[in-house]
Structures are given as structure tokens and as C-alpha cells.
């Protein structure tokens, strides 16, 4: 049960404010929240915060029935979605509700953002009215809600050719290698009263997050893949679709399928609208998704990866204690298949304190390296599979004392490393999971076949290499 819900912009301006129970007063609560959030001491978590009505020296301005109020918030695309409650409720449910609200708002307004929210204030309030009643959740299903929501979303973004260049979520290549603009998916799901024909699209994304830890001797300490199959459907609710996954897909350590190495994951969970009757035999997910966005399947894989890791880093460090000169030579090898590539690769290498100068020799001109916040940042916009890139960095670290012993040494000074990489791998899944097909049972009357967009993507969550 929540008392209030509000949305703040990243600068703390209240965009939406709704009081469900009238038991706690005033819009200044939103202000109070932001003040508390920004003034928080470093070791406290901002996820839950408390304010007490009694104390606080008139900060709140009114006394509640001598009890306190908890703020629970999530940050979503630069916005703060905050709920207040005076009860000791389940944090999991509430956080889930907030993120579900974020998804819903995204579905209805196109995409979630400061501009879209302020353009669609009426719609947002209408939605909140239906989702929550007196602070209790009624429903968050798009299907049910669509019967009650009358306001049309205001979309101002015109289609722009420039959007083609950047690859965003939900919009990439299909099997026919047609390209949808990356903004294609960021439109409201439910403004379907007018032009019906345009809207029959389905976006399916297989997104994997990779976290890896490699020891300084090159041995692999940890591999963790968190995968999701996300679906954004603009089809009418209840239309059935079938998603075929790679047949060698095995769940658990013991299962064995096919003859090859197989694609093995440790744990899988499915959305409740998924029917699994064909999963055992043919690895087909049958589902009747509601309109909007949902996560069809979540899976995790740890420790053994079927394919080689996308990147290997071979560092060598020369450290001359006498002159305080530190020389770092980094060789980055991309072990992807030659046809694929990695985008927006960035290497982050923390340096010892007191590094003053940097000279660099990079293997290609499009790379960039710079110092910032006590770390070296090496940007590689594009790395082709199978290629090898290198960078030689020389730094002066005058203040760094070391144990006695002059002359260059190969040991790294404390404070150097570990290096972490961030990158995106389009058209690649680290687990090897692929969507074989996406079939729709839905036949629109008289219209063309609905468009299906399927995309695979891996990106780094934490790719850490110790030096």
C-alpha cells in the first residue's frame, strides 16, 4: 500500500505528483525527498529513506500521526519514480511495482523521459488512477487497462533519418536484413484507434549481460551471463506467437541435447504468459503476450561459456621506481568471429595516485586515450573480430614511493588496475542462444503480414581484468 507516488526529473523538479490516501500532506514531500537524496551521507543507501513527521524541525511542515514515512524510489531513464508509504511493506513488491509502472508509462507514452512525461501529464494521471486505487494495486496488465484509458499519447518526435545511424534497443536487423529505425519501438503501444496497419510490429531482443573476471595470470576466475529475451509487441493482445530457440539449448548441468557442445544455461525462468508444452520437445515457447513490453525468458549461465571470451587483454607494465616512470603496454585481442565486431569499446584502467603526464602510442587513429578521475580511459569505437589492437602509455608518477630497488621492474605498482572493459556486441550472444524463428498465428484482416524484428545483443556488465 503506498501513500503517494511522484515522478521527479533528474534535477528534482516534480513532474507528476499523486496522493492516494490523503494521509500525508503536501507536494513539498517531493521536494523533501530530493533534498534528502542529494544530502545523503556517502555510506547510506538512497534506495529507502525515512522521514519522521515529528522531528526534522518543520522540514515537513506538518505532523503525521506521529509516524514516519518511507521513500522508496527507482531511477529509470533519468527520472526518479518515488513511492512513499507509512507501512513496513515488502521492498521487493514495491520496487517491482515501480519498475512495472515505468514500463507501463513507457508503453503508453512511447518512451519514458522527462519530455514525454511532461507532454502526457493527463495520460499519466489517468493511468495512475487506474493502476492504483487508494494506494492498492488493481492491475498492471496492459490488456485490462486499455479498456479504461481514453487519452491518446502525444508523440512529437518525427521520424528522422539520422536515427538510423545509432543502434538502440528494439530496432535492428531482421533476417531479411531490413533496418528499422532505432526509434521505431519508442512509440506508444496503444494509440491504435487510428492507423492500424502501421502498428503490426513485433520486436524481439535477446540481450545478454556479461560479467567476467580474469586473473592477472590470464586464468578465468568468473564468468557470468545474465540473459533475457525481451519482447515488445504492438499486435492486439491475445494473438499467439511461437518463438523457436536453438534446439541444443539445455537447462541445468546434466541435460544433454544434440551432438555438439550444446548451449547450456544454469537457470531459466519464464513469464507467466508463456506456455511450455512445446519447450521440452522442440524448444519452442508459445505465448499470448499482452501488448507492450515484457520479458519472456530470463536465464543465467555461470562458469563455463561455450564460446571463447570476446576480449583478451595482455598487459605488460614497466615501472622505473627511480625516475617514477610508468610504462603500460596493453594489447587487446578480440576473439569474436571475424564477421562480427564490437562497438563502443572502452577500457578503464585505474592508475596510482599522482599520475601527471600521459604520452601514448596507439595502433590506429580512431582510438582515443585520456586521463581522468585517476584513471586511464582508452576508447576504441569499433573492434573487428579477430583483430588485435595495442596501446603504449607512458606516465610519470613522481609521488609514488616504492620499496627500495632502483631500475625498471616488471611488477605493477599498487593502485594500478584492475582494468575494466565495457563494450557492445551486436548480433552476438555469449551463450550462443539464438532465436530460430518467430511465428505469429495472427492474421490481420486484409493487411500485410506484421513486421517481425529479431535482434541479438551482448554487452558488458563488468568485464574486469586484473593486472
Amino acid at each position, binding site marked *: 500500500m503506498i501513500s503517494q507516488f511522484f515522478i521527479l526529473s533528474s534535477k528534482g523538479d516534480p513532474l507528476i505528483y499523486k496522493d492516494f490516501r490523503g494521509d500525508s500532506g503536501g507536494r513539498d514531500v517531493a521536494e523533501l525527498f530530493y533534498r534528502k537524496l542529494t544530502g545523503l551521507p556517502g*555510506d*547510506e*543507501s*538512497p*534506495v*529507502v529513506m*525515512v*522521514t*519522521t513527521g*515529528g*522531528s*526534522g524541525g518543520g522540514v515537513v511542515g506538518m505532523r503525521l500521526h506521529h509516524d*514516519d514515512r*518511507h521513500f*522508496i524510489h527507482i*531511477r529509470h531513464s533519468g527520472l526518479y519514480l518515488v513511492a512513499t508509504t507509512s507501512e*513496513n*511493506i*515488502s*521492498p*521487493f*513488491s*514495491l*520496487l*517491482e*511495482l515501480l*519498475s512495472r509502472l515505468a514500463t507501463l508509462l513507457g508503453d503508453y507514452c512511447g518512451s519514458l523521459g522527462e519530455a514525454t512525461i511532461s507532454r502526457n501529464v493527463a495520460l499519466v494521471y489517468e493511468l495512475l488512477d487506474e493502476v492504483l*486505487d487508494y494506494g492498492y*494495486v*488493481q*492491475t*498492471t*496488465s496492459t490488456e485490462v487497462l486499455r479498456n479504461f484509458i481514453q487519452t491518446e499519447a502525444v508523440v512529437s518526435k518525427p521520424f528522422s533519418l539520422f536515427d538510423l545511424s545509432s543502434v538502440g534497443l528494439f530496432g535492428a536487423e531482421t533476417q531479411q536484413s531490413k533496418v528499422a529505425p532505432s526509434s521505431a519501438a519508442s512509440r506508444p503501444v496503444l494509440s491504435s484507434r487510428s492507423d492500424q496497419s502501421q502498428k503490426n510490429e513485433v520486436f524481439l531482443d535477446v540481450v545478454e*549481460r556479461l*560479467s567476467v*573476471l580474469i586473473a592477472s595470470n590470464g586464468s578465468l*576466475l*568468473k564468468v*557470468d551471463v*545474465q540473459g533475457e529475451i525481451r519482447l515488445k509487441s504492438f499486435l492486439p493482445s491475445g494473438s499467439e506467437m511461437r518463438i523457436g530457440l536453438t534446439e541444443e539449448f539445455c537447462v541445468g548441468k546434466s541435460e544433454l541435447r544434440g551432438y555438439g557442445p550444446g548451449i547450456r544455461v544454469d*537457470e531459466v*525462468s519464464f*513469464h*507467466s504468459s508463456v506456455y511450455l508444452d512445446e519447450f521440452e520437445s522442440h524448444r519452442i515457447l508459445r505465448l499470448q503476450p499482452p501488448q507492450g513490453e515484457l520479458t519472456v525468458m*530470463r536465464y*543465467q549461465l*555461470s562458469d563455463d561459456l561455450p564460446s571463447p571470451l570476446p576480449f583478451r587483454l595482455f598487459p605488460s607494465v614497466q615501472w622505473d621506481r627511480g625516475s617514477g616512470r610508468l610504462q603500460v603496454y596493453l594489447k587487446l585481442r578480440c576473439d569474436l568471429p571475424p564477421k562480427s565486431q564490437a562497438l563502443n569499446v572502452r577500457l*578503464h584502467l*585505474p592508475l*596510482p595516485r599522482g599520475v601527471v603526464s600521459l604520452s601514448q602510442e596507439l595502433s590506429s587513429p580512431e582510438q582515443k586515450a585520456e586521463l581522468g578521475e585517476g*584513471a586511464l580511459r582508452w576508447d576504441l569505437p569499433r573492434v573487428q573480430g579477430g583483430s588485435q589492437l595495442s596501446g603504449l602509455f607512458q606516465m610519470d608518477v613522481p609521488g609514488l614511493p616504492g620499496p627500495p630497488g632502483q631500475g625498471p621492474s616488471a611488477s605493477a605498482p*599498487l*593502485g594500478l588496475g*584492475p582494468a*575494466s572493459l*565495457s563494450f557492445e556486441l551486436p548480433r552476438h550472444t555469449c551463450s550462443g542462444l539464438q532465436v530460430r524463428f518467430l511465428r505469429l498465428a495472427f492474421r490481420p484482416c486484409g493487411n500485410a503480414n506484421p513486421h517481425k524484428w529479431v535482434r541479438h545483443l551482448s554487452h558488458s*556488465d*563488468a568485464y*574486469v581484468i*586484473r593486472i
Partner: protein
Amino acid sequence: MPYLGSEDVVKELKKALCNPHIQADRLRYRSVIQRVIRMSKLDQWGQAEVLNFLLRYQPRSEEELFDILNLLDSFLKSSSPGVVMGATKLFLILAKKFPHVQTDVLMQVKGPLLAACSSESRELCFAALCHVRQILHSLPGHFSSHYKKFFCSYSEPHYIKLQKVEVLCELVNDENVQQVLEELRGYCTDVSADFAQAAILAIGGIARTYTDPCMQILTELLGLRQEHITTVVVQTFRDLAWLCPQCTEAVCQALPGCEENIQDSEGKQALIWLLGVHGKRIPNAPYVLEDFIENVKSETFPAVKMELLTAVLRLFLSRPAECQDMLGRLLHYCIEEEKDMAVRDRGLFYYRLLLAGISEAKQILCSPKSDPSLRLLEDQAERPVNSWALDFNTLVPVYGKARWATIAKCQGVEHHGPELPNTAVFPTSGPLIPEENKERVQELPDSGALMLIPNHQLTAECFEKTWLSLKVAHQQVFPWQGAVHPDTLQMALQVVNIQTIAMSRAGTQPWKAYLSAQDDTGCLFLTELLLEPANLQMQISVKQSEARTETLKSFISVLETVIGTIGDIKS
């Protein structure tokens, strides 16, 4: 409520569950519950709510209990973390008499919790981490094989990193200690000073069990010579030396040299404490302390000065030759120049303690150097699951138990008690001797509630009888130098209306005197003065006819003043 859940049945059932009449009738309630938990078409919010309702239900028999658990089992596999956690809580509470069932449930929930810990939503991740810590309190080994999931990545926000470090610190065991320490060591040089310090403290925590590898890492960190690292490492050393005596040797070897990199109060205090208590084993301890004494004038923190006083005195007791001179200088500074009263009083106290004799000072200051038993109190591991089952899936673990308690008390501001200095000095029995004796004498007549009757007379026989029948109410020792002039003392005592019953002649050893006084309520104060010149101290024993501590205190202070004054004149 319109369109609640997905069916009318849901509505009806929910209403029924809230209906007091149905709640009162166990049979009906039971059948409703059976129907509720067999419903499959609830959405996740409905499921969470039903699980919440069911918390109120008390199954009648074991059979029914397991029936319910079986029916609810599917909720544990739900894809919504809210439902999973709700079900877990319900299971833990229902199975409160079956620890093995509870352990089983916690095993099942491991997967979903770990998934939530690595979830993309930071907030969810944080809540899950808090619950992981809660579980670890009861089952320390529960997540040990998954320690890698709790390694931090540099892009994570601060509050998640701190939680993860705490979790790592708690799940460490023989198998993963090497890897966990390796990981934590990387954090110690993090750009964020707060995070680095948290990591160092975590290593310190692990060092209580796995001393050697941790000590090695901590010693290495000192080599970085960075202020924010050195200060925390030294504080960790202090705690380790106190809790694990076996670390002391290593700590003493690591300490020399780190004084150059400590600037803050906490770090200085820790270093000075270590030098004082374990100075015997640190060759250069006196020199380091001497540097601190040289700079004591510019020292801004009174707590550091207090610590310094204690440490120098302690070191003096174990290495007198090297410390005598600087102890004198420090005491002189503290008594003559120091503005902070607490420091000054501490200086005076130590001064008088030394006057009382070296053996006494030793007795008081050379307290135990470590206390491993404190550690046992600290980690009361294996707390039963039932102690927190009710708090599971609420805000309590998210806030942390301590913070929740303050919140619950509705005291908005967190209360921090005044920090006590970390010295191991025993509380002294009795007030310190005042310095401005003369002024105090004049104040005396109107100072307290005590009014001594001017012309009180007591015969020697009467005194003896009363003296033997009473017990000593108070005993105290005053410093005293030189011989006694009985007449002077008698005169001085008469001024404050204390009658002298008997007195040894001047020069006798030991010298004794018996005094008596009576206040306006008729309470008698009988006193024995005993002077042993060899000890340079005067011992007084006071007996009181009526036990009243207030007046006794006042009387002692009167006596004290007189003796102090006379003693001063003599010396």
C-alpha cells in the same frame, strides 16, 4: 475494488479472508484458504497479497501445514521476486518448528535471490543484498560457493558496493578466502576513499579468522603511503591487536614508519594507542611519541592529546629511561598550558597517579592488552532463523536492524552518544584532587549541604566505641610529602569544625590521627589519618554513623582540601 485480480472468485475470496466472521470460524476459514491457494489465475500483485493474508493463518495440524506448503510451493518458483520473497517469508513463519524445512526453503530461494542480486535494477539488487546478509547471519555458509556473484564492478553505485563488501566479509570460508581477499585487495586502492576504507575494514574483519594472509595485505597497503589508507589500516591494526593477541607481533613489525601518513584524529589515536600498549616491542616507539609531543601545541583534537597522555605514561612504565623526560614535558604542557579541561584533568590525574607510586600506576594503567572474549560476543553467529523470519521481506533488513530500531522509536535523528576515549583506564574511585586549594577553602562553608556543627565534642571512649562498631565507608589516598606538623593540622581542621580526638607525635612512623565531626542532622563522621612517609601518601578512612553518600562526599572534599592545603604548605 473494481476488477481486482482476474476473476470474481478472487474478489470473493479476498473479501472472505478479511471478513472477521470467517476468520473466527476455523472450518470456513480453512476452506477459503484452500480455495485461495489453489487459484492459479492471480496476477503477481494478487499473489503477493494472498501470501500476506496467509501470514495470519495458523494451521491446526502438522498435516495441514505441510499441505499448505505443498500447495504454495509453486510460488517459490515464480518469476516475480516479490512473490518469491513473500512465499519465503510465509514458509519460514509456518515452518518455525521445522528448522530443516526452513533450511530447505532458503536453499530454494537462493537462485532467485542471487538472480536479483545481479539484476539490472540497482534498487532491486540492493534489497536482495540486504536480504542475503540477513540470511547469512543465520547460515554463514549459505552463499559461500557463490562468492563470485558478490564481486563489485566499478560501474556500480557506492551503496551496492558497500553491501557487497559486507556480504563478502560474512561468507568467507576456508575454500574461498584466497579469492575473496584477492578481490578485496583490489578495492583497497579504489578511487573512492570511502569504498577503499570499507574494503580495508572488511579485510580487518576477515583477519580475525584468517590472520596471516590478511596481515600481509594490510602491511602491503601501508607501503602505498596514502593517508586515507594508512589511517584505516592502523585503526584495523588496533582492533586486531585488541581482539586477536596472536596478531600483535606482526602489527608491531608493520607499524614503524606509518606515523608520517596519518593526519586525522581517529588514525592518530589508534597509532598512539598501539605505541603505548605495545611500545615494548616497537623499537622506535618513544621517538614517534616524542614527535607527537613536540607538536602537541598544534594538535587540534583533544582526544588525540588524551590518548597521547595515556600512551606516554604506559610506555614510561615499560621503558622508563627513554620516556621520563618527554613524559615530564607532556605533563607540564598539559597542566600548565592546555586549554581543554578534559585533557588538563587527565594530565593532573596522571601526575598524581605517579605521585602515588609507580606500582599503583602500573596496576591501574597496565590493564590487559587484548581481549579475545570480546570477539565471541561480537559475532554471535548462528542466530536462529526464527529471530528474523518476521522481518523478512519487509523494510527492516533494507534499513538494517540498528537503523530500523531508531526509526521505530520515532526519533528522527540518529543518536550518537559522546565518544569515549579508547583508553583502558579504570574508573577512579573518588574525585581528583583540586588544584586551587585556597579558593576552595573559602568556598567551603557555603558549598554543599553539609554543615558541620562548630562546637562538637566527643570523648575518646565514645569515639573508640563508635569507631569499632562502624564499618569503613570510604577510603582514599592523598599524596603527601615531608613530615607532619600536628599543630598546624589541628588548627586547620578546627577552622572547618573537625575535632581532633587523638594524634601521634610529630615524626613518629607511621603517623596516625583520629578525627571526628558532626553535621547539623546529627550524623557523625569519624576519620583515621595514616601517614607512611615511605609511600609519600596519606591514607584516610572515614566512617559514618548514618549511611548517606551525599554528605559523605562533601565531608571528604572538606577533608581533602584541608590536607591538600597543609600538604602544599609543607612541600
